[in-house]
């Protein structure tokens, strides 16, 4: 049944949110965001199978491109922060707190 795919997508998205709010490692938080993007992709593909139209496939491709851009920028920022602070803790990076 096609509902099972959507339920799996919800489970993966919830696990991604749990990873973002419970971990303090920069890399784990970043990969949890990637996991949430993948869960959204799965529901796009499932709905496009349900309606038998291919717009969901195009949207999934655009999400992949956005994820690639995000990965490039976020990893550059992580390298800079590691160079400055020598640490990977998200609580250390509080420059904008004032």
């Amino acid at each position: 049944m096609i509902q099972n795919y959507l339920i799996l997508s919800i489970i993966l998205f919830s696990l991604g949110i749990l990873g973002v709010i419970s971990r303090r490692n920069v890399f784990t938080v970043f990969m949890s965001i990637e996991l949430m993007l993948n869960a959204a992709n799965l529901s796009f593909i499932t709905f496009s199978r349900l309606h038998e139209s291919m717009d969901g496939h195009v949207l999934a491709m655009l999400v992949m491109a956005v994820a690639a851009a995000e990965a490039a920028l976020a990893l550059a920022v992580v390298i800079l922060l590691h160079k400055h602070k020598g640490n990977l803790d998200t609580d250390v990076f509080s420059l904008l707190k004032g």
Partner: protein
Amino acid sequence: MFAEGLFFVFSVLSVLGAIGLVLFRHPMSGAMSLIVTMISLAGLYALLSAKLIFVLQLIVYAGAIMSLILFIIMFLNIQIDDLPNEKGRFYYLLGGIVIIAPIGYFLIKVIKTLPGSETTIIGGGFGGVKEVGLVLFQDWLFPFEIVSILLLVALVGAVVLAGKRRLIK
């Protein structure tokens, strides 16, 4: 019947990979379990007869993006002492489950009311390169161009951020 078995295997593998990502302490182990999730999601896309997205998931996500993340993790040479001290993470995890579980339960109740459909493979080139390309370049041309500009800006930004500082000083 065979497709249901494949769906069961792939979904269990993807959920296990996601749980491993949340629970493993070292980011390298987390990245490895995320790769398991990506590859089983590619199998699910193949079961949903999305051929092009299946290939793109394997090449772009499990191949390019994850190898970029693994490269950066190895480049920073993270030892077990450099990791942040995450003493309270199980309390945060329990609190997050308490908040997320009702929302997920509600969404699952909503999904149960959707009209069901069989997940047999659609023939006739559904999800192939030619068909998806036609939809992409006819109906979605403007978002495609915007995404290309976004990729260019991200490329320039990454070079400016992580590049050498000598030229600026």
